[in-house]
C-alpha cells in the first residue's frame, strides 16, 4: 500500500502546484492508529500527510456539497462506494463533473475500527473487515479520471448475505418487528449524523430542519423518532448506495442499514434489480416513470 500512498501524495502535490485544482480531499492519520479521517489540502506541502490504509472508511463524496460554489476544481480520492456517491450526486445534479478530478483507489475493504480498539497496531491483518465491507461488490471505482492502483479482484459474494439481516427481521411477527424497531429508535438522540453523512441526503433544505411547517417535532420521543426514521428511510429509497456510513456514524448503534436494505430488497422485487450510483444513465426506479411499473394498488 505504500506505493499507492506515494503515488497519491505525488498526484495531490502536482495538481495543487500546477494549479489544476484548488482543493484535494483525501485521508490522513487521526488520533489513534485505527482512524484515518478526512483531510483537506490546499497547500501542496501538506500532501505528504495523505494516507491510504484499511481505515480510510469515511465516504468523501458528501463533502462536495460544501464546495458547490468553489471557484476552481476539486480533486478527491474515491473508493468504490465513494464513487457510487459521486454518481448519485451527479444524477441529482448537485455537482458538476467538469469541476472534479476523480482519483480512484481500488479498495481491499476497510477494517472494523471497533475490533481494532481492542487489538494492537501490528495485528491489522488479523482484524475482521468492517461489516459493510464484508459483502461489498463494488470495491473498484466505476467513475474516475485516473486510478491510483490496479483494480482489485471482486470477491464472490453470497447474495443472501447482503440481505441476511432483512431476512431475519422479515421472519418476525408484526408485533416483534415493532418492538425491535421501537427499542432501537427509542435510543436515537437525534444528532442527525446519519443524515449529514449520507450522499443521498442532499436537499438544500432538509424537511427535518424546517420550523414552519414543523414536520418533525423537536421532542425526542417515540413518535417523533419513528417519524424521523421512516421519513428518512423512504426519502433515500432507491438512492441509497449502501456505503453504510449512516450506521457507522450512529453513536447509538442503531442498525439503520437493515432498514435501508429492506427497502432496497422491496424495490428490487417490485421494479427489478437496481444498484444506486452504479451507472449514471440508469435513473433510480422511484425517480422515473416506466409504463411497465407494477400498479396492483390502482
Amino acid at each position: 500500500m505504500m506505493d499507492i500512498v506515494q503515488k497519491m501524495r505525488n498526484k495531490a502535490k502536482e495538481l495543487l502546484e500546477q494549479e489544476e485544482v484548488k482543493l484535494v480531499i483525501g485521508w490522513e492519520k487521526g488520533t489513534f492508529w485505527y482512524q484515518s479521517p478526512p483531510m483537506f489540502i490546499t497547500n501542496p506541502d501538506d500532501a505528504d500527510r495523505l494516507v491510504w490504509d484499511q481505515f480510510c472508511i469515511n465516504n468523501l463524496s458528501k463533502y462536495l456539497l460544501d464546495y458547490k460554489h468553489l471557484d476552481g476544481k476539486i480533486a478527491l480520492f474515491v473508493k468504490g462506494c465513494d464513487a457510487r456517491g459521486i454518481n448519485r450526486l451527479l444524477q441529482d445534479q448537485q455537482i458538476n463533473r467538469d469541476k472534479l478530478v476523480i482519483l480512484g483507489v481500488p479498495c481491499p475493504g476497510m477494517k472494523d475500527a471497533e475490533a481494532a480498539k481492542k487489538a494492537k497496531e501490528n495485528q491489522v491483518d488479523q482484524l475482521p473487515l468492517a461489516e459493510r465491507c464484508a459483502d461489498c461488490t463494488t470495491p473498484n471505482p466505476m467513475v474516475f479520471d485516473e486510478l491510483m492502483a490496479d483494480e482489485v479482484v471482486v470477491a464472490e459474494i453470497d447474495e443472501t448475505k447482503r440481505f441476511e439481516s432483512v431476512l431475519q427481521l422479515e421472519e418476525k411477527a408484526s408485533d416483534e418487528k415493532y418492538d425491535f424497531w421501537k427499542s432501537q429508535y427509542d435510543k436515537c438522540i437525534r444528532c442527525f449524523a446519519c443524515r449529514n453523512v449520507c450522499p443521498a441526503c442532499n436537499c438544500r433544505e432538509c424537511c427535518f430542519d424546517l420550523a414552519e411547517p414543523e414536520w418533525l417535532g423537536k421532542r425526542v420521543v417515540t413518535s417523533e423518532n419513528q417519524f424521523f426514521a421512516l421519513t428518512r428511510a423512504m426519502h433515500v429509497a432507491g438512492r441509497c448506495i449502501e456505503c453504510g456510513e449512516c450506521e457507522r456514524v450512529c453513536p447509538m448503534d442503531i442498525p439503520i442499514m437493515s432498514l435501508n436494505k429492506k427497502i432496497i430488497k422491496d424495490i428490487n422485487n417490485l421494479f427489478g434489480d437496481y444498484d444506486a450510483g452504479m451507472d449514471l444513465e440508469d435513473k433510480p426506479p422511484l425517480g422515473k416513470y416506466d409504463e411497465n411499473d407494477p400498479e396492483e394498488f390502482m
Partner: protein
Amino acid sequence: MKILDKSKLKDLLNSLSGEAQVFAPVNEDDVIKFQPWTDGKEVDLSSNALLPPKDLLFPQTETMYRYTTKGMKAEVAEVAAGSEKQVIFAIRPCDVRSFLMMDDVFLTKGYEDDYYKNKRDNTILISLGCKDPEPTCFCDSMGIDKSESEHADIVMFDLGEQLALDAKTDAGKALLDSLSELEDGSADKPDTAECIIKVEPQGLAEKLAKMFEHPYWEELSRKCIGCGACTYLCPTCHCFDIRRKNVGEEGFQFRCWDSCMFSEYTRMAGGHNPRPSKKERVRNRFLHKLQYFPERYDKVACVGCGRCLAKCPVNMDITRIIKELGEVAVNE
C-alpha cells in the same frame, strides 16, 4: 467506610430503590446508559456510560407547563418540575464535575432554574472511582482526580470482588447507615492508571479572545459534518430550545436539548442566520468551551470524559484542537 460484596449489588440497589428512584449504568441494545433501576437488570461497570447522566437533571425533552385555550379564555396548569428523590449510582468523577458546571449555568448569576434545581436538590450522587481510564479519557488534564470525587455524597472504589463506600456528606452518611447489605470495614484506595492523552487548556482563554477571525477555524471546520453527536454526548453542553405543541384546544410548552452545531440553532425570524456555515458553528462550540465559559464561570467547559473523541464520525479531537490552538500564531 463500608464494604459491599459485589454479589449483593442487586440487593443494595433494590434497598436503595425503597427510598428513591435509582439510576444505574445498564447496557441495553449495546448502549450503556443510566437507566431507572428495576430488579432483574444488570449493572454494567465495565466502562463509563456512553450517554452522560446530565439528562437526569436536565432531560432531553421536558414538559414545562400545560394550557388549554377556549375562545378568548386560556388557562395554564403548572407541571411539577420533578421533585422526587433520586440516586445516581456509579457516576464517574468526570460526570460529577460536569454537574458543577451545570450548577453554574442553571443556578447562578441571579437566576435559579426551578426545573433543574428541584431535581438537583433531590439527587444523591454515589460516584465510582475509575481504575483504568479509556484511551480517549483525559480527565487528569482537566484537574480531575479520577480515583474519587469530592463533590459526590458517597464515593465508591472498585476492589475487585467488593466495593468500598465512603460517605462525604451528611445525606450520604445517613443513606449508608440505612443499608443493611453493607458491612463496616476499611480498604486502601486502589491504584489508578494515568490517562494517556494529556492537554494543557489553562490560559488558553486569553489567547482565544484574540482569535475570533483566525483562519484556523475555517481549516478546522472542513471535515466536521455538522451533526450534534458531540454536543449531545457531552456532559457539559447545556443548550436548549423551548417549543410548544398544540393539539386542538390543549397544548403544552416544553424544552429540549439543542445543539450549536445545527444550522437552525441560530436562525432568526425572517431567515437571517448569523452563523451561516460550519466555520462559525464549529468556532462557537470550541470558543464556548474554552473561552466564553471560562470567562463567565472560571472553568473550562470540558471534563475530559472523551465521549466526543470516541464517537465523532470524523475524528474532530478536542485534545488535538486544544494543542493546535496553543501553538497557532496570532497576529497582535
